[in-house]
């Protein structure tokens, strides 16, 4: 029985264009926990993040993802977000002409139930005045500036267009800025460390560490151990060929770093590799 403070993924199978990528993934994240999901390229890490957030190209063929008694896999992506799920994208999209601040004001208003109720129903407020369903500008800007400063983002970013011409590091910091404003209960960070130099990595990691706490569960998807030097996971999973082949404590990440992924690969008959003893 899933509780309000757990996010429970059970036997998740996901196909992309007819090809099965995730072949039965189960994991449970409690609030206050940081789980790292590590795996080589092509193991299905990003497929997991996209499927959990509800990208239409990723078809779920089996399994559940229970949260607050709901199987979020049955909800459209926007409703998942309003329920408190968040994904920091590996490759954030560019939206020309849309300023960071007007986008975030609308997103925050949606998350706080002003724009639409969490379950997607329109608010029954009769004729709308422009801006009536949005967080008041002053209040929003105060909050935005504060969160931007914490991530060392210059205030000029507010009026820039979303991810348009941003460097890799700027995009990742803006992802974390969105996370800070939307205040999710479960966050998936997909390769948030990729493309970052060491200084940018530190800023982003500090940002994540400030946000996480007893009220948030985190799934940290990463290829390298490097990020885990700055964000300490409680649990580490190794994903290979669409299955979690090992689960352990932080030491598992160091083990991976030392010997690479090859030793974790399941044998050809579909059984588990010799190293892959359950934690």
């Amino acid at each position: 029985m899933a509780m309000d403070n757990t996010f429970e993924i059970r036997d998740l199978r996901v196909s992309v264009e007819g090809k099965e990528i995730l072949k039965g993934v189960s994991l449970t994240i409690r609030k206050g926990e940081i789980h790292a999901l590590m795996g080589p390229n092509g193991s299905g890490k990003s497929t997991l993040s996209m499927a959990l957030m509800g990208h239409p190209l990723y078809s779920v063929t089996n399994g559940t993802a229970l949260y607050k008694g709901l199987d979020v896999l049955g909800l459209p992506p926007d409703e998942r977000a309003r329920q408190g799920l968040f994904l920091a994208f590996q490759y954030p999209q560019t939206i020309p002409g849309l300023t960071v601040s007007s986008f975030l004001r609308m997103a925050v208003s949606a998350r706080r139930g002003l724009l639409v109720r969490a379950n997607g129903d329109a608010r029954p407020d009769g004729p709308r005045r422009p801006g009536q369903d949005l967080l008041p500008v002053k209040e929003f800007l105060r909050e935005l500036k504060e969160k931007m400063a914490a991530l060392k983002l210059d205030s000029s970013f507010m009026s820039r267009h979303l991810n348009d011409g941003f460097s890799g590091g700027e995009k990742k910091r803006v992802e974390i800025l969105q996370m800070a404003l939307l205040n999710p209960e479960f966050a998936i960070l997909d390769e948030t460390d990729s493309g970052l130099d060491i200084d940018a990595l530190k800023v982003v990691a500090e940002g994540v560490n400030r946000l996480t706490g007893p009220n948030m569960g985190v799934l940290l998807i990463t290829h390298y151990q490097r990020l885990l030097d700055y964000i300490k996971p409680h649990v580490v999973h190794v994903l290979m060929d669409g299955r979690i082949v090992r689960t352990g404590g932080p030491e598992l990440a160091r083990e991976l770093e030392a010997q690479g992924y090859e030793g974790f690969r399941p044998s050809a008959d579909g059984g588990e590799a010799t190293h892959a003893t359950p934690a």
Partner: protein
Amino acid sequence: MQPLPSDLEAVKSLYKEKYGFSDAEDYVFKARKGLDERGVAEISHLKNEAPWLREYRLKALHVFAKKRMPNWGGDLSAIDFNNVYYYIRPSERSEDNWEDVPEYIKNTFDRLGIPEAEKKGLLGGVGAQYESEVVYHSLQEQWTKQGVLFLDPDSALRDHADLFRRWFGKVIPVADNKFAALNSAVFSGGSFIYVPPGVKVTVPLQAYFRINAKNMGQFERTLIIADRGSDVHYVEGCTAPVYSSDSLHSAVVELVALEGAHIRYTTIQNWSNNVYNLVTKRALAHAGAFVEWVDCNLGSKVTMKYPSVYMVGAGARAEILSLAFAADGQHQDAGGKVVHAAPDTRSTIVSKSISKGRGKTTYRGLVKVERGAERAKSHVQCDALLLDPESVSETFPYIENEEDRATLTHEATVSKVGEDQLFYLMSRGLPQVHAMNLIVRGFAESIVKEMPMEYAVEMNRLIEIQMEGAVG
């Protein structure tokens, strides 16, 4: 992801609620349907016009009859010229006091929010046209004192006949095209603006055009003369009720920017889906003058409109920003024309078009550089956004260059709203329609941001209405 709302009925009902209502007809005069010499003479007679103008109209009627329908652009085959009311006079006269406007017309404009901006002091002057006539006109004292004229054509002909006649029909002659000829025959209403040398009108002058009757034809005529070194911004808006039978809107707009003058002409067209919108807009830019068209086309059944600037003096500049939104069943055939007829002239055309459902947008533009227009520079940028798989966009950029020392550049892009972009915004909690709205608004942003704030807000709301469709 659910299919995009492209429900024409839903858009119609949203439009209807806000703009598409109609008033019972209570008119002083309504001409019979159809077009002939008697009808044209009647309009001239009712307006007490001088013989020269009556002759001008009748001549134009013959030109109209002789000219063929354009065999390019939108499909106009369903227009029945015999099933149109060419002239309706809603009230006895144009008022300069809002209170004196007939009650039901006042209510209509109140409902459309027209006098609001004037009350707030955001405008220098306001004109409101209902059917064929301007029912209300005002210009702040600050500008009348400086000699600015902002009148309907009838008043201009009465009080400033020489000035009017000197410029009228000079930029767009009767025989320019079939619809210019039609307008020249039956024109009524519109605006006449004269800005004296050096006077800078710092707040926009606004006109609002409302069609109410079924099968109405609205043919306003606008003439703006910005004398040497002067500056003026004119804004026009328009709406009509939703009817199942078609209406016709065919305006002629002539601008003259004398040496060093600046005219900006902003249009927010928001016709209902039963209006044929066939408008001729052209400007003359003399030496050092600068003319800007900001032309936003939403609604209508078919729009054909290509605001033009003829740069006839050295160093003249032109900028045409065209935004078109074609929803299901609509065709926006829009663009711009620039003619470089003098050295050191510069022009920019930026066209942004959005097609939704089976909507179709066409960019049609001409850049012409005449021999001797040395160092002329022109840049054309056309961006099209397609919202649905069946949406259509096409581009016809014509270039005629007779001058070796001219620099002409052209860029065109066509993009679809990406599933990944939509997913990205939705993953932040935005429902699909909102996500779509933001993408479309972002696309239109570079043009919308050129408008005064109130209009930009209105513009975004109009896009939202076109976008929302099946929601609610």
